[in-house]
């Protein structure tokens, strides 16, 4: 598949996300925040970093960049979109996902290998895992505390839209240990930890993160025509 990876001014993990998509067998299309079209990609990754310097709120300025107008429209039609860390924040600011991400409750930046449980293995980005599977990938964030009102949290839980949950230790004060969520359709996923940093034995916390990128292969049957 053709996987677009958006680079915003201040993105950090775009190169790693491109590499992860490549390792999973995809063709990578670099996208720029000022782009007005998505170059016919079959999926989009919004990578981690500090887009627009995290000014105003994390993801608040990026959400209004030209490329996000395209991403929001395509996501509404079913295009798979994965937002990692800052990308998750952008998805929340875009209202493609509910809730918001606030400063870690302990005030410190956190960087660690984090164990997670995959709670929903039927999204576009998690179908390579099995439900309940435990994985370890990198977590690094300063504003990773997922918050939403209780009704929203209950709805997310009730509809199986919690994609991944922190195990052993809640690293940032996220309510109900939520590490990632999805939209109703399961094509948009936001995740605070970084699967793109856990795709090769040589570096990082093993290869548990690769599944997020190989999951897309299961969607090949849908083909580009659906999202053209």
């Amino acid at each position: 598949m053709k996987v677009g990876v958006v680079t915003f001014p201040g993105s950090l993990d775009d190169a790693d996300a491109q590499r992860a998509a490549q390792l999973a067998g995809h063709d990578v299309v670099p996208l720029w925040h000022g782009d007005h079209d998505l170059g016919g990609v079959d999926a989009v990754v919004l990578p981690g970093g500090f887009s627009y310097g995290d000014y105003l709120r994390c993801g608040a300025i990026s959400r209004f960049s030209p490329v996000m107008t395209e991403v929001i429209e395509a996501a509404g039609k079913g295009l798979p979109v994965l937002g990692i860390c800052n990308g998750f924040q952008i998805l929340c600011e875009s209202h493609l996902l509910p809730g918001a991400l606030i400063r870690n409750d302990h005030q410190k930046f956190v960087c660690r290998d984090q164990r997670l449980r995959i709670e929903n293995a039927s999204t576009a980005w998690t179908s390579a895992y099995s439900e309940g599977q435990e994985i370890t990938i990198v977590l690094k964030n300063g504003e990773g505390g997922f918050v939403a009102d209780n009704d929203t949290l209950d709805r997310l839980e009730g509809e199986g839209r919690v994609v991944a949950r922190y195990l052993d230790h809640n690293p940032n004060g996220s309510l109900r240990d939520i590490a990632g969520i999805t939209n109703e359709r399961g094509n948009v996923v936001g995740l605070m930890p970084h699967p793109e940093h856990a795709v090769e034995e040589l570096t990082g916390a093993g290869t548990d993160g690769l599944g997020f990128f190989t999951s897309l292969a299961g969607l090949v049957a849908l083909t580009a025509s659906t999202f053209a």
Partner: protein
Amino acid sequence: MPKVVVDVMPKPEILDPQGKAVQGALPRLGFSGVVDVRQGKRFELEIDGEVTDEVLAQVHEMAEKLLSNPVIENFAVSVLDGDRGAEDGAR
């Protein structure tokens, strides 16, 4: 030129780690008696021309769309200068 002020505050039910850190620092500096600190943002918008109802409505829209995140923050609009005095646009 008149200024319209938008004050943005974290909602009461949302944890404010920054406010907590400031609160924790105050006693260490010898200040006592502060039982809670909430930290927000203040935007001062310099307006070209008169601050009409239309302008205020627009500022409300800006606050809702960009300056605040309604999921976690409340905002209030007020007029700093000009003949309208303090305008209460709290919500």
